[in-house]
Every structure is written in C-alpha cells, then in structure tokens.
C-alpha cells in the first residue's frame, strides 16, 4: 500500500495538471454560452423589408408573433445565413419595389420565400404572409373598383383587427406547456466532457506506458507487478482530470451528470491500465487519438440519437452507456463498472502470467 501512495504522491507533484482546471471550463464555456439561447418560439421566421415601404406589412405580420411563431426583422445577408444554416424555419424577403408594386396592383412574386434544410412550417408561414399582404393590398383593390365606377374611396379606410379566436381544451384545463428538447444543451456539455475525458484516458495510457519503460519503474516492476506500479500513476493522473470534469459540469450547469462520470472514469482507468501494460499497443495510440472525439460525438447520442444502421449495437458503446446513465437508466452504471473491473482483472492476470 505504501508503494501505491508513494507513486501516487510522486505523480501528483507534477503541477501541469492544474492547467486542466482552467483549460476545461474555458474550452467548454463558449459552447455552453452558444447553446444557452433565450426561450424562443418553436418556429422562427426572418423577415427582410425593403429600404422604403413594407412597414404596414411588417406591422400586420408582427401581430402574428406568439407562442408558436416568431417573426424576426433582419437584413438580407443575415436572413440567408440563418435560413441556410437551419436556425430559422424560413425567411420572407420583400422586393425592393414592394410598395410601388402594390400601388400598381402587381403582387406577382413580390415576396421571396427562402427555404433551408430546416424548413417545415413554411406553408403556414406563407398563409400568414398572404393574409398580411392582402390586408395591406385589399384597400388598393377596393379603391380601383370604386375608381372604375367613378366613386371616391371613403376617407376612413378600414384597419381590421385580427380575428379573436379563443382556445378551449376538451377538459377545460389549461394547455400543457410546450416542452422543446430543453435538455439538449446540458446533454451536449455532458457528452463533450466525457469525450475529452476519453481522449485524456488514451494520453494517460501513453504516459503510464512510457513511464513503465523507464529505469525506476522497471526496477520497481521487478519486485511488484507492472499493474501495481502503473495503477497508482494512472490514479494520480485521473484524480485531477475527473475533478476538473466534474467541476466543469457544475460550472456549466450540468452538475447532475457529474455523479455518472465516476463509473465512466473507472471504466476509462481500466482501459488505460490495459493499454499501458501492453507496449505493443502504445504506438497505435497517437494515431487513434484524433479519431476518438469524432467517434464519441458521432457514434454516441451526444448530438442526436444514433442513426447508423446498427443503433442497438452502438447503445453498448461506453459513451452511450454513460449518457444512458445520465438519462436515468439504472443498468448503465453497473455495466460500466463491471466492464471496468473485467478489464482490470484481465490486465492484472496477463501481467501476473508474464512474471516468472
């Protein structure tokens, strides 16, 4: 036991890991801020008005902004960017000579409806825009009919208020609030932290593997097993990393996922130990490192549910199990712990078998 604490203390003396505490939240804070958008309606529609005219149309349109749709006034470049990027459902781009064309009675293609990959509710947006356009244009039609008859248009031209539609539920109780995947941001943060910890596990394996080959470690390994020498070093490497990850989750508002990082860390520690004790695996680690975060993000449900043809198989990936534990699956954490224990036992047995 004293050997464990000796190596543990020696490893902890290296202060570079303190950087982890600073770097990790700094890396994740922009992601978290980007994702923490204020509460908005589920359907967002950008509207670009011409330099002159179009205000009456905008006034009519903005009255339709509510719980389900939000019309956002913006410029053309931003409108194209947000619609093309899938952030807004669609966009309405009014012709530069919009007001003149309404006066002349030419509404043909006077509004461009910009559609992007996320456009789903655009038929409804088109209906609303058509209703607003008619509200602006209807007086012109009526005036032209009266002019044809030689009559003058009335001075108090109408400005209709929106029709009042009262919503009632079948049971009489109020509508349930809209729930729109509010946990996505926290889940993404949890996934990214776990992905970074996975990358760290390979770096730790590399460090411990190389350290086992130096003179001091070789001499101790002659007396004790290599696993007994590598484990304290790995534990000392993991301790600050896992603490930094849990602290980051707490800082970024995903503290509830911190607890489930512990079984995942135990599993990763076992993977690191297994790799560190097999020198033939070590040259592969630097080559695999850049692949690991991509694997974590694409093959586990960090961004979206697994969509490959083998989703059932991908559910058993360690990262997927960690996220399942975060989602409240009772079996995921024990599976991770058992897999970790099995890997550790395999690594130790193999090491013992090699000793004379």
């Amino acid at each position, binding site marked *: 036991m004293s050997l464990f604490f000796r190596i543990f203390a020696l490893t902890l003396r290296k202060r570079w890991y303190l950087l982890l505490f600073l770097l990790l939240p700094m890396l994740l804070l922009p992601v978290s801020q980007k994702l923490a958008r204020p509460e908005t309606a*589920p359907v967002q529609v950008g509207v670009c008005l011409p330099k002159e005219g179009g205000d009456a149309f905008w006034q009519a349109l903005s009255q*339709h902004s*509510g719980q*389900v749709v939000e019309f956002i006034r913006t410029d053309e470049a931003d409108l194209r960017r947000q619609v*093309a*990027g*899938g952030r807004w459902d669609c966009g309405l*781009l009014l012709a530069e000579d919009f007001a003149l064309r309404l006066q002349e009675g030419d*509404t*043909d*293609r006077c*509004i*461009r409806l910009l*559609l*992007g*990959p*996320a456009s*789903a509710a655009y*038929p*409804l947006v*088109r*209906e*609303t825009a*058509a*209703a607003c*356009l*008619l509200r602006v244009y*209807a007086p012109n*039609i*009526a005036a032209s*009919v*009266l002019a044809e*008859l*030689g*009559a*003058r*248009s*009335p001075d108090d031209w*109408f400005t209709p208020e*929106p029709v*009042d*539609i*009262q*919503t*009632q*539920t*079948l049971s009489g109780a109020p*509508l*349930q609030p*809209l729930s729109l995947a509010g946990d996505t941001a926290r889940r993404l943060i949890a996934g990214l932290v776990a992905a970074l910890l996975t990358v760290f596990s390979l770096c730790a394996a590399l460090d411990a593997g190389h350290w086992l080959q130096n003179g001091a470690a070789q001499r101790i390994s002659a007396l004790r097993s290599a696993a007994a020498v590598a484990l304290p070093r790995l534990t000392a490497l993991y301790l600050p990393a896992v603490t930094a990850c849990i602290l980051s989750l707490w800082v970024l508002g995903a503290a509830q996922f911190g607890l489930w990082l512990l079984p995942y860390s135990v599993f990763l520690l076992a993977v690191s130990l297994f790799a560190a004790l097999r020198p*033939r695996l070590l*040259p*592969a680690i*630097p*080559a*695999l490192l*850049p*692949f690991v975060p991509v694997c974590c993000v694409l*093959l586990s449900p960090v961004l*979206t549910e697994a969509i490959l043809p083998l989703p059932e198989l991908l559910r058993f990936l360690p990262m997927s199990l960690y996220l399942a534990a975060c989602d409240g699956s009772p079996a995921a954490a024990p599976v991770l712990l058992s897999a970790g224990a099995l890997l550790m036992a395999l690594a130790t047995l193999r090491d013992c078998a090699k000793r004379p």
Partner: protein
Amino acid sequence: MSRLRLFSRATREAMNACCRPRLLPGLLLVLCLVLSLAAAPTAEKLLTGGVSFSGITLGVTAPEGDETPALLAEYLGKMQDLRRYCAIVPLDDAQAEQSLEDGQVTAVLSLPENFISAVRRGDNPTVSLLVRRDRPLDALLTLWVGQSAADLLQTVQRGVYQVQTGAEAAGLSSAAQDAALQTINLRYIQWVAGRSHAFREVRLSPVDTLPLAQHYGITLTAYLTLCAALIAGRLYDRKRLTQLARCRSVGQGSGCFFWGAISASTVFLTFLTLPALWAVCSSISPGLVGLAVLWALFCAALAAALFLLLPGQSAGGAILFLLALAALVAAGGILPPALLPPWLQELSFLSPASWLQSCSARLLGLPAEAVNLRLLPAVTAILLALAAGLYAARFGRGEAEA
C-alpha cells in the same frame, strides 16, 4: 544492389513500419468508413433540427342549420395549396368532441351564430377553437392556421363592405352597386385563389456545391486521413534516419529511402481514403481512384515535410493534428459554410479539405471552384520538393551522426 531493388525494399520496410501494430490499418479503415458515413445523416438531422410537419385536420362546427362548415369544406377543399397542409371536415357538436378525443381531427373550430353576416357587417365575431390539452404544439399550430385563414376572410369581407359603402355614398344605381359588389368579390376571390403567386420559393443550401451528405462525408474523410498521416511520422524519426544513413557508406543515396517512405505512406493512406470516398460518393470511377491517390500523396507529402521540418515526433504530430482540425473547420466540416463568419468563408479556399470537396464535386459533375482544383496537385508538388530537400539534408546529418 540496384536502385529499383533498394527502392522496393525501402518501400516494403516503410510499409511494415506504418502497419505496426498489425491491427492498426484495419481499425483505421473501419473508423474512416464508419465515421464518414455517420457524418452525413448526423449533419442532416442536426441541420433540419429533427423538425417535421405533416399537416393538420381541422373539424368545423356551427349552430344547427348553418351550412357554413359544409361550404368551407367544399370550397377550401378545392384549393390545392391549402390541401397540402390542412384538411377541413364539417362536424356537428356531438361528433366534434369524439373525433378530437380519438385523434381523427387535430382541433375543432366552432363558429358562432350568423358568423358570415357578422363579418360582413364589420363586426369582429369571436370563434372558439377546441383542442386537446396534452397536445399543445398541435393546438398552437392550428390556432396559427385558423388565425391566418380568419384574417384573410375578414379582410375580404371588410373590403367588400367598404366598396358597398363607397358605392352607396356615390349615389350609384342599384344595378351599378350590384355590379360593383360582383367585381370586388371576383377580384378578391381571384387574388385569394392565386395567393401563392405572390411568393417565389428559393431553396438555400447550407453548403456550397455538393449535396449535404457528401459535403460532410468528404470533409470528414479529409480530416481523418490527414490525421492518419500522423503514422507516416514514424518514417522520419531521427533514430531511423540515422540507421538508414549508414547505407550511404555503401554508396546509396537518400532518394530510394525518401521515395520508398512516400510510396508506402501513399499506399497506406489510399487504403484509408478510397473506400471512404467510394462509400460517400456511392460510385467508383478511375477519376475517383486517381483523386484518392492524389489526396493520399498530398497527406504523405505534408506529413513528410512537417516531421522533417520540426524537431521531434510530438511537435510534428501536434501541428499536423491542428492543421487537420483547421482544415475541417474552414471547409465547413463542423458548422456549415453558411454559418461561418465571412472572413473564414473567404479563407476557406486555403483548406485542403475544400480542395478535396471541389475535386469530388467535379468528378460528380457538379460545379467546382477552379482554383481549388489546381491547388491540390500544385501544393502536393511543392510539399514533395520541400520534403525531398529536407530528407536529403537530414540523411546527410544522420550519416555524420552514424
């Protein structure tokens, strides 16, 4: 030993060095293939936000004897653009609640007594929408549709009313007034029926020329193979160069070893690139094979130049990884090009991943940036020349150390 034999030996030996441990090439191949294929559906799902809308079914009721619901269903049912997202079903009060509970209709619109005449009078009659409490989004979408339709109807009716008032005020004969009402009704109906002509649909793509799936698949293939070129770093290790330099004492130059290393790493990287490109583009052609070889040669040359230029394997590996990451970001491999800041969009032509995208687009018969098509072979040639020079210099230094 002839030059050719030495070259083939050097290539074989370099290939062995690249393929350690034995499982590594297979593992990298599987990862390249799976990740390139997984990128496309993930990006598609993320960009569409997982949103889908298949339309609503609206039940309409009115007091007994009022034919408005049936008339609405008949006339609105004929409008093709409306039918695409909304079906209207006339119901009586008893049917309405049951249909809503069974999920046969999304909501029920209940019209008050004399709704049409009230609108015609210029009143603002209140209509009620009956929805299910546990389906708030459905309810809000229906409310939105209902509001737009009601606004349209109200505007038309008020317009008709205004013309009637104007004609009366002008003292027109009753025949002229009837004609005026007929004309205004006809004009409004024509406009409402053809309201979709006021819009021109323009489809925007978040990526440049390639389809979304291929854009992400090819960009990720570029990133992964650039990262895999890290393995080629082993071939330019100081210790290895020192050992090889001993051959100079038996009259051999550095050329065979350098080209052997480049050939081995090109073959290794082609082994990773070609299946991924094939899977992403869903077709194979001599052009695609040539592109995979050219891309692999570029990665091999870049790795050679970096590892020979920088001291130590770690520095070369770190820079290569950062370059691959920068190439991925600049080519729109993380955020789509449409969402990149304008200055980064301007610089994206410098990303090797953009060159691979453009070359693939050309092979697929899509428009491609002409500059990017020339940059890939040109930069490869420059990097090869640079790496060959550096190798010769390091080889000479290695000989001195040996």
